[in-house]
């Protein structure tokens, strides 16, 4: 069992004047989540640092064969601690913990090891998890907080989706990005007032957001449509994927990056699948069913909102993704992004994004199976698929990655 006795807890007293330093992943989503947490009285510092120093810090403190996301998140945190910006006795760190069978559940322990190496192990590390892995008296995921957080993630998904579908065509460059910022501020203000997170409010805001993006003047020129799937961190984090979304944009592509909500439903649904496959306690099932139902309502509203405008491509519902996955892979395959990653590739191809970049950290174990391992089967179902797997790690160079993506784009343009 992981040694919890020696763990430094984040106490109630600490909540008053400690700053919680947070590594970044999906910039839009995390910005919103940060603001949710702040509205509950936490001081959050969401890191926006980039650059080689972060990789170097990671290499110094994390086993070099550990996956790139761990190396970067821990590197980013250690870099912050070494920046001199913080009173080290007044900071805490936070890290997500999924509890699945892949290495990601161990990031938090690797972070603690890194702190220990540096004699900083008095700094509390908060585990952000829904599996009850670790708890802290000063940091509680309360129901109201969770509801706002779920709303925030969903807003993030919608903003990302609409931005990606508007930006390549906007007649005045910069309008979509500005609108995203505007909405982040507006939603934050609403969260602080305790608004914009009930089902009804969210639905209304979805419509407003979609309408605002639909109002941006665009010129529809034909573009290569590219989908991005992958290990969750590398897929979203520009730090990890060397600014993939921006690169694709600069190459004149329209990009679709499937959202986080689907991943959340997937994680909940996995518990139900486990029970179905191996047997288990039906009581646990009820809570999961409830959560799944709750998430799905948000998803349905998001899709409905986007579908009101024919110029936008709405994502398919989770249930459809699951149906697609069933053609090629078992539902028991759940570690990491599991069968969802395969399903996302299929769904993207179906909805017109036949060019797919499959991102993964070098040597990512689940992606051997659900990414590279499934490409052949996906291609049998969709012969038009144009998929390129790209590995990210501290030494993979951008030149090589971009060259491979350019090849994919050349095929996309030339047929």
């Amino acid at each position, binding site marked *: *069992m992981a040694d919890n006795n020696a763990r430094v807890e984040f106490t109630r007293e600490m909540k008053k004047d400690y700053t919680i330093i947070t590594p970044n992943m999906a910039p839009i989503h995390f910005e919103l989540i940060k603001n949710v947490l702040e509205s509950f009285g936490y001081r959050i510092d969401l890191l926006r640092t980039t650059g080689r120093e972060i990789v170097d810090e990671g290499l110094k403190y994390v086993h070099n064969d550990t996956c790139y996301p761990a190396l970067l998140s821990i590197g980013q945190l250690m870099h912050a601690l070494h920046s001199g910006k913080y009173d080290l006795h007044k900071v805490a760190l936070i890290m997500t913990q999924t509890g699945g069978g892949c290495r990601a559940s161990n990031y938090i322990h690797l972070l603690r090891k890194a702190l220990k190496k540096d004699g900083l192990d008095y700094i509390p590390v908060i585990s952000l998890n829904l599996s009850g892995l670790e708890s802290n008296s000063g940091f509680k995921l309360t129901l109201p907080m969770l509801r706002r957080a779920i709303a925030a993630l969903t807003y993030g998904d919608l903003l990302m989706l609409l931005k990606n579908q508007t930006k390549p065509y906007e007649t005045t460059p910069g309008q979509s990005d500005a609108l995203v910022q505007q909405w982040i501020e507006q939603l934050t203000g609403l969260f602080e007032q305790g608004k914009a997170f009930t089902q009804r409010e969210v639905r209304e805001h979805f419509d407003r957001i979609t309408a605002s993006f639909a109002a941006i003047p665009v010129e529809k020129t034909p573009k290569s449509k590219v989908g991005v799937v992958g290990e969750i961190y590398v897929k979203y984090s520009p730090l990890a994927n060397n600014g993939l979304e921006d690169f694709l944009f600069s190459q004149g592509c329209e990009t679709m990056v499937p959202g986080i909500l689907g991943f959340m439903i997937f994680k909940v649904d996995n518990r139900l699948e486990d029970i179905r496959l191996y047997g*288990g306690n039906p009581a646990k099932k009820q809570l999961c069913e409830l959560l799944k139902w709750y998430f799905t309502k948000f998803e349905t509203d998001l899709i409905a909102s986007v579908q009101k405008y024919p110029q936008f491509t709405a994502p398919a519902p989770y249930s459809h993704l699951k149906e697609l996955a069933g053609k090629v892979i078992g539902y028991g395959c759940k570690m990491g992004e599991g069968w969802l990653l395969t399903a996302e590739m299929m769904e993207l191809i179906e909805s017109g994004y036949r060019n797919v970049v499959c991102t993964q950290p070098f040597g990512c174990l689940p992606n051997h*199976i659900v990414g590279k391992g499934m490409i052949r089967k996906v291609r049998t179902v969709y012969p038009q698929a144009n998929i390129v797997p790209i590995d990210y*790690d501290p030494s993979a160079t*951008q030149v090589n990655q971009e060259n491979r993506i350019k090849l994919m784009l050349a095929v996309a343009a030339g047929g």
Partner: protein
Amino acid sequence: MKIGMDVGSTTLKCVVYDDESRPVFGEYERHFSQIAEKASTMLEHIRAKFPDLKTAGVCISGSAGMGLAEDLDIPFVQEVYATRTAVKKYLPDADVVIELGGEDAKILFLSGAMEVRMNGSCAGGTGAFIDQMATLLNVTPSELNDLAATSQRSYGIASRCGVFAKSDIQALLNQGAQKNDVALSILNAVVSQTIAGLAQGREITGKVVYLGGPLTFLSQLRAAFDRELGVQGVCPDSSLYFVAAGAALGREDREFDLEELTQRIRRYSSSHSYQSSEPLFDDPAQYEAFQARHAQDTVSTDGHLDETRQAYLGVDAGSTTVKAVVINPAEEIVFSRYLPNSGNPVPLVREFLRDVYRQFPGIRLVSGASTGYGEEIIKNAFGLEIGVVETIAHFTAAKKFRPQVDFIIDIGGQDIKCFKIKNGAIDNIFLNEACSSGCGSFLQTFAGALGYEMQDFARCGLFADHPVDLGSRCTVFMNSSVKQAQKDGASIENISAGLSMSVVKNALYKVIRVTDARTLGDHIVVQGGTFLNDAVLRAFEKEIGKDVTRPSISGLMGAYGAALYAKAHTAGKSKILGPEELESFTHDVRTVTCNGCQNHCRLTVNTFSGGARYIAGNRCDKPLQKHSPTAAYNLYEYKKQLLASYQPGENRRGVIGIPMGLNLFELYPFWHTFFTHLGFRVIPSPPSDRKLYLKGQHTIPSDTVCYPAKLLHGHIEALLEQKPDAIFYPCMSYNVDEHMGDNHYNCPVVAYYPEVLDANITALQDAKFIYDYVGLHRPHDFPGKIQAILAKYFDPIPLGEVKAAARAAYQEYEAHMGRIRAKGQEYLDYARANDLPVIVLSGRPYHLDNEINHGIDKLICECGAVVVTEDAVNTLVGKKFPTTVLNQWTYHARLYAAAKFVRDSGDKRINLVQLVSFGCGVDAITGDEVRSILEAGGRIYTQIKIDEIANLGAVRIRMRSLFAALGLGN
């Protein structure tokens, strides 16, 4: 007219087409990274040839041309795409194109579903790889080709990574393998890498076209591809120009004023910036002070023989050099040589000794010791009495310079060796894992690729103003980092300095994995040929922020240490060959296949004059007719015997084939019992070997997955040949729960590899492949669940019958694990009673496979230790205990428990060695945790990384050093 220019990683190619799309000009040149200069010169050649041509269409292609094209706004087409355009025009009936370049490897599938494959982050199997390997053999690539043409046989060489391959080749050469056979093996390795890495499950058939430099220039490489693919490929006349032609033939039609463009390219120097580090030296004065300080650490190298004419010999037959010294009783060096080793060290040492006898008539070589990779062969050939493990040799020499030495780091041609010294004994050893070795020779190869001598290259970085920050990962990957730096406009000086720094960072952060230089030690001695470069030495001192001692004979330390060791440990009468014996010295090499067991090792038998023999290439003692006292106490052997005892039973319901791989190495007793009880006849796939691996290689979709997983492709193919009614290999997220961790998962690869097999092995579509999700961790639910699964494939089986079979299976599994534990206990008791060292050789169940462990278990027995396994001792520590990581995988929980067992045993003779398969991401976590558990008790952690090919020579050094550090055995 249209001009197509292909800027590759090492060469520049140009083609001009006239308005009727006929090629009228072509040029090919190496660019040595001076892309802008060479490109503008090439344009000038075109203008000279066509004086009337003022404007023309221009299009650039090639991986190194992207920056140029972007910055100067010249059309660019991706090179694979360009190739396709050209192939469509010239060879419309081609089915597959294989194109190897300087650092790229590509396969284009043209017929059927069009697909293109490019190598990703790995440079193995490319022109750069062949160049590196040719350098190692001390020949040019075309000489390598000629050598290969006369070859008789081929050895297995890891091609994934140049560094791995280097170790393999070095070992082969040192064992006396013929150069021509090694040459062929290198080419075969390229073929194997291309197919495994790029074809990824798609078959290469039909009309195959070979393009690019290596395939154009090396006929034997084409022949190797033909052989492996069973095709007759073609290499068209203009095979070097296809990319350039494709660029010219593309849709781009922008016209450029050629004179203006030539000027523009000439003036172009990339304005990009790159990450840089502080310069090595601020000014020449600082460098002089540095030189003066290091000039103090010397030992006399012009010593004389005294009246007794007594002297001691030390030979260090290293990976890329042979070092030899003779010292007098005052421990001064009388005579020494530092010789590049281009293969066989024997003639070099013979020449050395002849020189010694010529220059010092009457000299009496009282004793001699050899060390290094070639230790054994030199010892046997020349009658030296002592062989000393490298680590001890270096320590002995270092003490001479700095008696209080507490840390030694040696960076040689391809190894990094570091050790800590505590209380006058070696306390901890770090040897580079195979993936980051090759540092010294990498600098050399790189210097060569850029047209420099190694020393000049390193020196030119001394005063670089902005050294490129190239990071600290595997050196092979640095190829592309350097490419990026060049694109960003880094000068050769800054690249040189950057590479020197990277070598140092690799050693510190990859091998020793320090976080704080202060923990290294206070008295640090650096040595090895690589440190003879002031740039590397300076980079090291700067990185750790401390002055170190570099002995003047930095490159000779191993040999000097061996000589000192010989002097201290002489047993009396020397049998070193005298001058006459040297004259009549002969060395005969034969290759034979050992048929002692199913490994069928290819042995090289070296016979020397006087009948001395040295056999290499063996994985065990059998061909040596030696007998190790602990051979019978090898739990790996026992576990294999247990598995072999499960014989196929009666066939009432059908035949079920089970592939012997990954978790099935442990669960075979379970499934065998279960299905046998149900009336199925259960047959396992045959034991793994190289051939079996190759059989399935073409369907592996991810070339970075671990070797144990890759092997399963071969097992499935082998099972399919036996035509069972079904193949059973279930997916299992969860493993058996042993209640020793927070959870009981399998790693993702073990859990879901059957999915990959089903998705990529075409032949499985026509077979009954049962790979459903099964949970053995819920014994009560299991019968019902498995009954439903089986009903999908066979006639329904009554639940009662399934329940009974399940009960028997669980019982058998428990009994099986119990047998392992009981036998383990027996071995531990035996070791204790006989005062023998014990190695807990820890890994996963599948490390039992000979093809995966490469006989390391036997090697350890040869060293005189008893071998037990992690699953034999893990229960001895009692209940669940705290770890600093999330302990969520069943197999890994055993590793932690085994480490705790070793630590708590308080018995210095019991030690743990962890086997780690290359690519095992999970072991990045377990390795660190096992280490910290052991080190908390002051124990030594030893990790051995294994892949397709293992360098047993290096493993032997590890083991001997470990035993030496413990003061156990030889």
